[in-house]
């Protein structure tokens, strides 16, 4: 049936140029003899050029020439080709070649019709790339639950599964899963999600979050689903780790005997554990404001921790609880930060009340022991004096009895001497027993020592004893009772000089050394005098023990020890007979007494 005439004319005149396909006609010499507008838009100017020149930019025939084949065989052909468009860009196109046969069966021309598929192909490749490289495993499953296609990521992880049933390939099962997201999608055509455990090609178990969607045709129908699976194994592990860490931390905070507190970046109290509540006397139902917290801790502590250094540690300080009571504590503050950003601060508080109490009890026990020893020593001194007095009485009475004047005189002298000793002894003891309250002021520890050395210098010079003052480096002022410490050092240096006097060694010397090491102030009195043996060493501090006969009361070292103890320090001695003696006073700075009220005059 022929079309109406006017249509036939239009087709004849315009169809060639109206077709969106590029159409060209070539002759047997491969010259382009005719082409439509679409061809010119795609490949540019064509008049007088060879086909291989126009399509491929070549100056010679293609090695596989589809045109030559069509001229020879006289059959239409379809080929996918790659050439260059008029801008010189690589172009993919489908070429339909149709031979034009004339009456005698000759083929003088070929009609070549090209469809540009560059863009389509580009899109197809991009989709493939997306399919393979999307950061999850993608599987296409058909209605028989066979895996028809997998992406590269799925193949890497799970191996080659195409053709297998999903339940077998992914889980090693013989039958379908009870919970099947693909079936849900096949049933209702909607998106479904689920959790599955799959087996990798290496035999490990992976936990995956799975999404299934229908793969719809243009008409909306579908017979396949796409299953996308994200590996959440690591996430689950991290979640578990996080849960554990959280529970561990929470238990520690809740059960800690130390108070634990935390504030956020705005200073709001976010953690206040039961121990901290107890310390601060806050009821479980009460909240603690940042202002209240700042008022309880030492001044500016919260501010200093959040703005200042990362860590502040106060070994001994005082907090004030909600009821206004002061409590001795050990306090540590730590700045909390993520990277460079401060997110708050944490505080830990240790109760020192019980330790303080123990320390006080220990000091009291030491004091009581010293009192006991003092009484024992006193008894010893009294016994010796009584014996000497009785001796005097005996000499006197037996002298009278015998008419021995010499003996009477000796007895009188003994009575006289020992009565005087009693008087001296009692005075010294009263002064010891009365003592005086330690009143510490900030003093230069070295200054006290220097003054004692200056005091003894003339005496030592007279006796030919070298007196040495050693101060390796200056010492910061410390809370010391000047008079009392002066008395101690006077005692020790005096003893050392006495020890040198009775020594059989020549070239005697006494050194007073003052130095500080790790928060301890040391006074050392070292001599190369007569020294002491074991039993003397045992008794020097604890009784009214004198090695000086009538010249001493035995109270000097006892007094010295008492003063050192009251300064929170210790005194020790090392001595060897005929080698010399070292007395070492150690005053830990943190145990020194509090500085006395400067308004009150120091008692003498």
């Amino acid at each position, binding site marked *: 049936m022929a079309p109406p005439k006017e249509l036939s004319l239009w087709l004849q005149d315009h169809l060639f140029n109206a077709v969106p396909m590029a159409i060209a006609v070539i002759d047997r010499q491969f010259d382009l003899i005719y082409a439509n507008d679409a061809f010119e838009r795609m490949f540019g100017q064509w008049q007088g050029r060879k086909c291989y020149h126009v399509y491929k930019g070549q100056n010679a025939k293609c090695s596989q020439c589809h045109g030559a084949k069509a001229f020879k065989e006289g059959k239409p052909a379809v080929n996918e080709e790659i050439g260059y468009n008029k801008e010189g860009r690589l172009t993919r196109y489908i070429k339909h070649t149709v031979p034009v046969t004339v009456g005698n069966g000759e083929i003088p021309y070929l009609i070549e019709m090209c469809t540009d598929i560059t863009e389509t192909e580009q899109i197809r490749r991009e989709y493939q790339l997306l399919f393979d490289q999307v950061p999850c495993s993608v599987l296409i499953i058909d209605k028989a639950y066979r895996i028809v296609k997998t992406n590269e990521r799925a193949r890497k992880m799970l191996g080659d599964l195409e053709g297998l049933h999903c339940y077998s390939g992914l889980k090693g099962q013989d039958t379908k899963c009870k919970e099947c997201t693909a079936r849900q999608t096949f049933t209702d055509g909607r998106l479904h999600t689920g959790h599955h455990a799959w087996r990798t090609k290496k035999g490990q178990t992976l936990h995956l979050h799975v999404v299934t969607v229908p793969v719809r045709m243009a008409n909306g129908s579908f017979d396949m689903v796409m299953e996308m699976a994200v590996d959440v194994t690591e996430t689950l592990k991290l979640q578990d780790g996080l849960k554990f860490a959280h529970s561990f931390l929470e238990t520690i905070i809740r059960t800690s005997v130390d108070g634990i507190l935390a504030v956020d970046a705005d200073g709001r109290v976010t953690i206040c554990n039961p121990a901290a509540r107890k310390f601060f006397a806050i009821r479980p139902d009460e909240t603690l404001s940042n202002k209240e917290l700042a008022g309880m801790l030492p001044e500016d502590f919260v501010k200093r921790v959040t703005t200042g250094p990362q860590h502040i540690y106060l070994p001994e300080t005082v907090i004030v609880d909600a009821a206004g009571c002061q409590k001795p504590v050990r306090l540590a503050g730590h700045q909390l930060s993520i990277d460079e950003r401060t997110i708050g601060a944490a505080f830990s508080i240790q109760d020192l009340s019980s330790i303080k109490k123990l320390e006080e009890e220990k000091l009291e026990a030491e004091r009581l022991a010293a009192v006991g020893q003092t009484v024992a020593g006193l008894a010893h001194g009294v016994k010796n004096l009584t*014996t*000497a007095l009785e001796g005097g009485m*005996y000499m006197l009475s037996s002298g009278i009895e015998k008419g021995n004047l010499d003996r009477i005189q000796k007895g009188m002298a003994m009575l006289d001497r020992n009565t005087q000793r009693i008087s001296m002894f009692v005075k010294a003891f009263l002064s010891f027993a009365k003592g005086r309250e330690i009143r510490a002021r900030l003093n230069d520890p070295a200054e006290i020592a220097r003054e004692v050395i200056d005091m003894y210098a003339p005496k030592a010079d007279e006796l030919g004893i070298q007196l040495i003052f050693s101060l390796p480096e200056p010492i910061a002022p410390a809370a010391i009772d000047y008079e009392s410490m002066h008395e101690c050092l006077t005692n020790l240096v005096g003893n050392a000089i006495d020890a040198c006097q009775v020594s059989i060694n020549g070239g005697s010397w006494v050194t007073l050394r003052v130095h500080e090491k790790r928060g301890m102030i040391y006074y050392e009195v070292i001599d190369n005098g007569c020294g002491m043996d074991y039993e003397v060493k045992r008794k020097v501090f604890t009784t009214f023990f004198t090695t000086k006969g009538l010249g001493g009361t035995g109270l000097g070292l006892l007094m010295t020890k008492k003063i050192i103890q009251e300064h929170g320090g210790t005194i020790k001695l090392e001595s060897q*007979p005929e080698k010399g003696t070292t007395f070492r006073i150690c005053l830990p700075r943190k145990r020194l007494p509090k500085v006395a009220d400067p308004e009150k005059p120091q008692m003498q």
Partner: protein
Amino acid sequence: MAKKILIIEDEPDILTYLTALLEDHGFHAFPIADQMAVADTVAAVQPDLILLDVMMPKRSGVSIYKELRSSPELKAIPVAIISGFSPEGNDMATGFSRMLPDEQIEAPSGFVDKPVDRQALITMARRLTAQPKDLT
């Protein structure tokens, strides 16, 4: 022949007293104030009894006692401790033995507390020197 008693005591007045007391009761007393060369003196005198004070300067009675007891020539001489030192209550024997913790040294032959009970001292001195009766 009078029995010889060596007295080691640092208080000169007590030394004078004990010397007079013992001489009055027929003993031959040797007062020693120097505590350093005791062993030589003991060896030279060869006393029948030693009265030894404990708390003395330079060298204690305990140290002297150890030396005497460790000398084969001198260890047979009886030693009585005379002291006002009673560290553990009133029991001087216990207190003294505690000062000799490490060595296997036999206890002193007697103890005399200060102030001295004269009759007790003389009785003990006679017993330890085995002197039969009072010569005065």
